[in-house]
């Protein structure tokens, strides 16, 4: 058997596992791997400007292609800079492999130059991690890491490889299929559970589907199955932030997103439902509002591949541990086999229509200033008929994008839901563009968030990636300012974006096209120019400074206690509500 160096084994494994792109940054402890990648014929390396950027690019690549994202960074600061992205991928269940260099095995524990306890630091923010101490173990570990990252509930897996292990050689043989001794996620639901679920759905008078990122992770077949099951049952659908696109927003069964900034109809439907069918969502606090008032009169079915998500927050009547796609397909088959017909839900739909009439996403018109919601609506209109992928940073603009940009397909909406990482969206757009060279990739950003990883302007320039960076610039950390307005009597402590750069000049300095839009009259033409201009384009869209994101469920309130407009804001909050974040 041929001997190969650890670095060559790693690269060969990546090729064997179908890896085409690696997002990384070189350094002392990964030099042997970088040498093995030098002029590689099939693996493209994207040189980032900061390791956090690499992790979010890998996330954007993974979320938009369904393939795992791969990151390569050096030891010490390379690894610690990757921690936020690893945690983000864990919270949002994104398949990611992070390869970190480590100091040589004989130096581990000696506080060597650029040494950090990477496996210790990442133990609780990764799905799994490894420190590989011999080159003979590498091939098995890498294949196992991909298996763990991409199966079950997906997540980030870290492989820490000391420098001497990269240099030393060992016999290489391509590992076979992974048969793990203890890691065996349950994919298929027990038939009895499926039968029980079908029985509950068939009897429900006021059912609602509440779906999440798990449906997207389960692949396009799962989204197709969800559509079919909704068609068969006639029930309405709402979804979490992470689940947008699994069900088409253009369907008349679609209620919009639920939760803190969800629609009136979605939240009231949840509140009044007699059956909640949760598929691949996890009852996050941003979704449920006050727990003792969450869907209080409903039976609940919870389909999730992660048993620990079930009964964690909300106790359910029927837990089903399964892959969302597999369970949805089984439900469809069982529904048809039982000869069920859709219930007459016309009374339920009439009630929902009344809630829809509230038109909770309405926003005040303004002729002097650009309303941020309007800017997103214009962007949505201008991109119809194009294959568009939207990423966001975190804050008001993210919620406005979720409300006013509508998705009909999965894998087109990339956002940091669980961890809420400012600095996610721009690198995620670069990663998505790498994986989808022909798509129109637009990052909807805020003026504050975008500065958290703005150095990646250089990465897009270097690889000639035509990403569009659409900044809703209100000169505030808008969501922080909104909360201060709601909770702390408008004492805007440190939420003003002072000393902002001239974004247009900054773009130009990096070889981008920069466009500024200041007047509502220029919005349409500015967006059209952004889309028509080849190469990367930054748009500094100056929007109304003090707009707030409504509707909103204040912390500690229930789905039926939504604030619909600023007149309902009192400016203070009880300590109990303040403490709920």
């Amino acid at each position, binding site marked *: 058997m041929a001997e190969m160096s650890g670095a060559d084994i790693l690269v060969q494994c990546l090729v064997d596992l179908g890896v085409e792109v690696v997002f990384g940054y070189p350094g002392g402890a990964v030099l042997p791997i970088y040498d093995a990648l030098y002029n590689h014929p099939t693996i493209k390396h994207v040189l980032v400007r900061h390791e956090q950027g690499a992790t979010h690019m890998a996330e954007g690549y993974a979320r938009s292609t369904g393939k795992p994202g791969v990151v390569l960074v050096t030891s010490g600061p390379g690894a610690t800079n990757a921690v936020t992205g690893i945690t983000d991928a864990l919270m949002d269940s994104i398949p990611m492999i992070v390869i970190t260099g480590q100091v040589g095995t004989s130096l581990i524990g000696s506080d060597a130059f650029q040494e950090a306890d990477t*496996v*210790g630091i990442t*133990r609780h923010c990764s799905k799994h991690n490894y*420190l590989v101490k011999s080159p003979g173990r590498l091939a098995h570990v890498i294949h196992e890491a991909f298996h763990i990252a991409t199966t079950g509930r997906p997540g980030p897996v870290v492989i820490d490889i000391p420098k001497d292990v990269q240099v030393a050689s060992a016999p290489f043989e391509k590992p076979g299929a992974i048969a793990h*001794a*203890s890691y065996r996620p349950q994919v298929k639901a027990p038939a009895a559970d499926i039968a029980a679920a079908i029985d509950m759905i068939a009897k429900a008078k006021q059912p609602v589907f509440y779906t999440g990122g798990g449906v997207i992770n389960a692949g396009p077949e799962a989204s197709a199955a969800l559509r079919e099951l909704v068609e068969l049952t006639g029930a309405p659908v709402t979804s979490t932030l992470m689940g947008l696109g699994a069900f088409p927003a253009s369907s008349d069964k679609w209620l919009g997103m639920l939760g803190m900034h969800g629609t009136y109809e979605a939240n009231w439907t949840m509140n009044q439902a007699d059956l909640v069918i949760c598929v691949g969502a996890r009852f996050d606090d941003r979704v449920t509002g006050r727990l003792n008032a969450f869907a209080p009169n409903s039976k609940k079915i919870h389909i999730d591949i992660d048993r*620990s998500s079930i009964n*964690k927050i909300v106790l359910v009547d029927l837990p089903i541990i399964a892959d969302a796609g597999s369970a949805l397909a089984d439900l469809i088959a069982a529904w048809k086999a039982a000869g069920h017909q859709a219930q007459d839900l016309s009374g339920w739909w009439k009630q929902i229509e009344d809630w829809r009439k509230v038109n909770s996403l309405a926003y005040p018109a303004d002729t002097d200033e650009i309303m941020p919601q309007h800017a997103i609506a214009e962007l949505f209109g201008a991109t119809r008929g194009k294959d568009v992928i939207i990423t966001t940073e975190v804050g008001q603009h993210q919620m406005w994008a979720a409300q006013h940009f509508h998705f009909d397909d999965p894998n087109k909406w990339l956002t940091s839901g669980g961890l809420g990482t400012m600095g996610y969206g721009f690198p995620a757009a670069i990663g998505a563009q790498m994986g989808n060279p022909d798509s129109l990739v637009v990052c909807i950003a805020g003026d504050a968030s975008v500065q958290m990883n703005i150095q990646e302007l250089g990465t897009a320039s270097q690889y000639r990636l035509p990403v569009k960076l659409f900044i809703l610039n209100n000169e505030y950390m808008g969501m922080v300012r909104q909360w201060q307005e709601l909770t702390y009597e408008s004492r805007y402590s440190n939420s003003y974006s002072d000393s902002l750069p001239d974004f247009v000049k900054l773009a130009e300095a990096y070889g981008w096209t920069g466009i500024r839009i200041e007047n509502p009259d220029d919005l349409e033409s500015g967006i059209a120019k952004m889309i028509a201009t080849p190469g990367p384009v930054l748009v500094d869209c100056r929007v109304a400074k003090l707009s707030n994101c409504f509707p909103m469920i204040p912390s500690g309130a229930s789905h039926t206690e939504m604030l619909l407009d600023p007149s309902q804001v009192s400016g203070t909050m009880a*300590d109990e509500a303040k*403490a709920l974040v």
Partner: protein
Amino acid sequence: MHIAEEQNERHVLSITVTNEAGILARVAGMFTARGYNIDSLTVADISPDHQLSRITIVTNGAPHMIDQIIAQLDRLVPVHKVTDLTDNGPFVERELALVKVNGIGEARIEALRIADIFRAKVVDTTTESFIFELTGPTDKINTFITLMRELGLVEIGRTGIVGMVRGKG
């Protein structure tokens, strides 16, 4: 505002894991990261090829929290099996304690008498001290230690709980 506290139950969990570097940190760290309690923890290699270890953890929490702890443990990649001994019928739990007692005269004789009642073994002695070895459930050891406090107790070492379900495996 005040923070509410919930009624807790004591549970003994037996966890079979792959015997690999960092596994104890992974399990113990999950408890601290999610705010669960560890009252006692033991771990040792249990297979002839040294591939498996058994961790026994005594924890406490509300019933839904115990359920969540088990689910979170099950989710860790190197965890093979989690058994809640408390919820699986009668089980045996034992820990071992070494208890050093200094004393002369009547106190020393009384210590020896009580040790006999508890079936503790004397594993070391000087004219002014004993080390007793005692095995039993936590309650028994706690009681023994309480009695010895009055009779010159100077040092305690305890292993923590190991447990096993009664009857055929």
